[in-house]
């Protein structure tokens, strides 16, 4: 879990260091940050053994509603 957090922080430092150089507005920073956090959350759920399994969710929805 700590490795995940370390990677996450390192990825952000790298991202901001590069993005600050190129003239990008708030939106790109937000998007970059949002997507990485979403990815980190998914990774966290896998590491903590109960994954947010989207496939099962789709399977459940399909079998129930169709």
């Amino acid at each position, binding site marked *: 879990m700590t490795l995940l957090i370390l*990677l996450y922080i*390192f*990825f952000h430092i*790298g*991202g901001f260091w*590069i*993005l600050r*150089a*190129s003239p990008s507005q708030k939106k790109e920073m937000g998007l970059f940050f949002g997507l990485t956090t979403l990815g980190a959350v998914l990774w966290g759920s896998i590491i903590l053994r109960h994954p947010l399994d989207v496939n099962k969710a789709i399977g459940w929805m399909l079998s129930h509603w169709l």
Partner: protein
Amino acid sequence: MKASRLGVVLTLLALCTGCWDIKDINTLAIVSLAGVDKDPKSGDFLAYYQVMNPTGLSTRTGSSAKAAVYTFNFKDFSHGRFTEKTGRAMPRLFFTAHLQSYIISERYAREGILDLINYVELNPERRSNLIIFVSDSPLDVIMNSFTPLDRVPGRFMRSLSNHYQRNFRMNIYPIRFKDLEKDLKRQTPTVIPIIHYNGVKAASKSDEIEKINATQNGLTFAEGAVFIHARMVGRLDDKSKVLFYILNKKYRRLTETITVNGSYVDVEAQNIQVQRKWIAPGSHLSFDIHADLRIINNQQKRKMTLQNLQQIEASFNKMLEAKAEALEQMSKDKGWDLLGIQDHGGNEDSWRQTKVTFHVTSTMTTTGNTSTPYLLE
């Protein structure tokens, strides 16, 4: 492009996490021959793995005549446990990608080897396209003896089977795990050669092969074991094994001795073509066999004339038809569908009643160097 630099950094980051699958080639125990036997009483498997010793094999380093291979044997109740168990005895990593052949003891074969087939097919590293032998002599003798000429016993057996392989039409010798699997649900049996060790004590010391007599403690490769649904049901003698291959598996060559005018003529039949036709579907099957003959040894006391050659052809045809009918009769007695009647259109229950006729034609193509044999009178 700033972001591409981040891409490179990211890839490098992902790389430096170390390498899991590294296995250096001199940390490998290269298995060249594997054998498995089943103890009927306790149900345990005895697995023998023959590991090649690279320095022993390579003559370059001029090392003393060390043994080319070392055999390890293990005993356990299920196949999967051997991969881990080998780690306890072998100093190197168990590596079966270069297996040359697999030997199964007769008593295990008679109990059915489906579990072994599943074990080998599961992991692609354990090759399933390697040749199988059934051994009627005790496995620990065969696995612990060195072989002349070819220092690695695994390659010795593979080159033994290579003589046959060349004569099959598509040079495929159908005695591999995959052939057993392909014929699993078929009625036509698969015939696997039986390997026999003529001798009692294993030639287990590397100086044993210094002895000149190669057949005394050597391996011969004669009869065939009949497998139906991956279980050995019986044995075939050498000649009917070859005839079985000719009729079913496109084998091309047959050497026979025929008596013409009271003396022997050894004849070799080459590129034999077998045509299978249903005269009356389900009830009358006919085989047309054509062969080109070559005289190997002619003992006749006659001049070599055209009629003489036709006599030889006629007696060969008669002999082959008789042998084929004998095989057909034996297969019906024993209940093994050796001619593959059911798989080629015959029906399950009444295949024994189908009438089978053989019609053999042959042409004499090569008569060898001497036009007529030397005669005394």
